[in-house]
């Protein structure tokens, strides 16, 4: 019964309120037709502005304010929290790891996405391949983390390897010693990044594949007749033509990787040198109740992401203007 009422409110109430608002705001625009048409858009946008202000701008400002105050927000501490972010050992490890993620995750995802997009373009079972590669996008990060935890499972040498990765390697590579992928500090970051790549390759592939398909067939044929080999066609024609799309995918991946959290939280919880900034923020906030440092990390993340975001929006606008 409650669901029905809620549904009715949503289906009838919300449009009714919107309509009512438009009706009520109409007299405010005044009689002068010219003035009214100048004022009207602002009146219509007002509710959105209010929502954005309450749920976005105000929290951002409060976060900045809190980042300048002590752990319990009781006193002003200046930039001390920021100093902590950039000096404490565990935070520096997180910063280093985020850099690793930024470079290797982005490059790896782009490389695999492009490779699969190019290769699958030439086979008949393309749609099957692409569906399989895309499936991880549909899994929750938590589920993916758990799946890969099983995949990376380690048993000492001599025992039956139940982890897929170790099982395959020990049975295929003679003399291979099973590894504790997630505990060994030389492999654990790479193992986590691999999971990220596995999840995001589908995204890169789908968008790059669309870009590749938008290259006219006769342009490729013209290059072949002009004497280009398959590799030359790829590097001199295909690659430059998907360049803008590659840039878009790269920036989107970067925005996401800066915020990486779930995979690390589920698989290692940032232990053994695998922590990342977002996970640090979570820990400072909910484990140590330090709103000051947590907010400082949040502000730092925001500052990192904004420029990438601007590049992406610019590119998007250019694309829109060209198309």
């Amino acid at each position, binding site marked *: 019964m409650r669901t029905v009422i809620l549904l009715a409110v949503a289906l009838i109430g919300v449009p009714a309120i919107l309509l009512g608002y438009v009706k009520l705001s109409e007299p405010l625009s005044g009689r002068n037709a010219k003035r009214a048409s100048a004022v009207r858009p602002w009146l219509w946008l007002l509710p959105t502005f209010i929502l954005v202000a309450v749920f976005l701008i105000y929290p951002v400002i409060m976060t900045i304010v809190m980042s300048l105050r002590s752990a319990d927000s009781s006193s002003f501490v200046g930039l001390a929290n920021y100093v902590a972010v950039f000096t404490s050992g565990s935070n520096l490890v997180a910063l280093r790891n985020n850099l690793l993620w930024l470079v290797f995750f982005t490059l790896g995802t782009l490389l695999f996405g492009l490779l699969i997009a190019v290769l699958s373009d030439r086979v008949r079972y393309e749609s099957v391949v692409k569906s399989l590669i895309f499936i991880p996008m549909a899994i929750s990060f938590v589920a993916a983390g758990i799946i890969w935890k099983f995949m990376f499972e380690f048993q000492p040498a001599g025992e039956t390897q139940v982890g897929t990765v170790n099982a395959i390697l020990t049975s295929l590579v003679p003399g291979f010693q099973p590894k504790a992928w997630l505990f060994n500090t030389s492999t654990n970051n790479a193992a986590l990044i691999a999971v990220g790549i596995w999840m995001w390759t589908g995204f890169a592939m789908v968008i790059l594949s669309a870009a590749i398909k938008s290259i*006219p067939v*006769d*342009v490729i*044929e*013209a*290059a*072949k*007749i*002009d*004497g*280009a*080999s398959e590799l*030359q066609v790829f590097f*001199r*024609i295909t690659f*430059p*033509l998907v*360049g803008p799309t590659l840039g878009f995918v790269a920036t989107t991946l970067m925005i996401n990787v800066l915020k990486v959290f779930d995979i690390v939280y589920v698989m290692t919880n940032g232990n053994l040198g695998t922590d990342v900034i977002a996970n640090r923020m979570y820990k400072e906030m909910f484990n140590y109740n330090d709103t000051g440092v947590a907010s400082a990390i949040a502000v730092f993340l925001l500052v990192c992401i904004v420029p990438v975001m601007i590049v992406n929006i610019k590119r998007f606008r250019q694309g829109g203007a060209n198309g």
Partner: protein
Amino acid sequence: MAKVELKKLGKVYEGNVRAVDDANIVIDDKEFVVFVGPSGCGKSTTLRMIAGLEDITEGELFIDGKMVNDVPPKDRDIAMVFQNYALYPHMTVYENMAFGLKIRKLPKAEIESRVKEAARILDIEKLLDRRPKQLSGGQRQRVAVGRAIVRNPKVFLFDEPLSNLDAKLRVQMRAELIELHDRLKATMIYVTHDQVEAMTMGDKIVVMRDGKVQQIGSPLYLYNQPINKFVAGFIGSPPMNFLTVKVGEEGGRIFVEEAAFKLYPAAEHSSLLKSYIGKEVSFGIRPEDLPYADHQGSGVIKAKVTVVEPLGAEIHVWGTTGTQPLVAKVPPHHMFKIGDDVSFAPVMEKARFFDRDTELSILPVKWDERA
């Protein structure tokens, strides 16, 4: 420069779809050959097989005496101009033209002089720094042609290169391509569905239909000696009239008749029609061989006018014999109105006769003019 030979060339797509069947064509060195036919006739597929863009499933292809069935396009030394120009969108006009030469690692100075020379010939010197997006359709087409000629290939292939241009530009480019062929003295193969392009440009025309070569010959040969109803109807505009007539004989004289007329074929045609006495044949007469007759006597076709198309230099008069439509090309000083009863006196020496069942010419004609 080179000779291109197609021996029993065929293309069968998956699912047993046959696009080209048993094509035997010889294209001589320095010849301008046009493949013409309606869409889906296999002309483009044939061209793409010569280019190496399409696998050859049957027969053999020789370029310059060498079998090239399995040679990839890049090693065939051919250049191709595509219908949609196929310029590289991320390169300037100069880079577009230089691409094939850079790939072949020619010295920079050589590349520059070749591109400049081609640009001069095509009058696109001022566009060298532009990108394809900044060019008009006609300019793009010139660049596409330029990209082909800088390569100085053995064979030039053109795949309906003028069909995206407006009518005026098309006529201009047509003339320029003829001039270009004359200047380069290169082997050129040109695909079009436009019979006017075929007639005006080709040294030799290959008419195709449903994947099969119908007839090969010079434009005038095909115009005057079509091998079947299809070639007769495809070449020439407005198309040849086909009237179903019955062959008869009276007093040793062969005649063909229909309700609205009775005509006496020329002597050399009469003997060939003897075996058709009592049967129906298709009587073909071109609109230009149907002069207006101001008498109602014998040897004329009586018709009622249905449409009049004054073109300035001439008038196309469409009419009906009562059961069959026909069109005549008459000088502009005649005045016709829809509904007029008119007579045309066909030039019987120019008439063609076709078998009703096989559609083949009853008059002897060569499949390949030079064979």
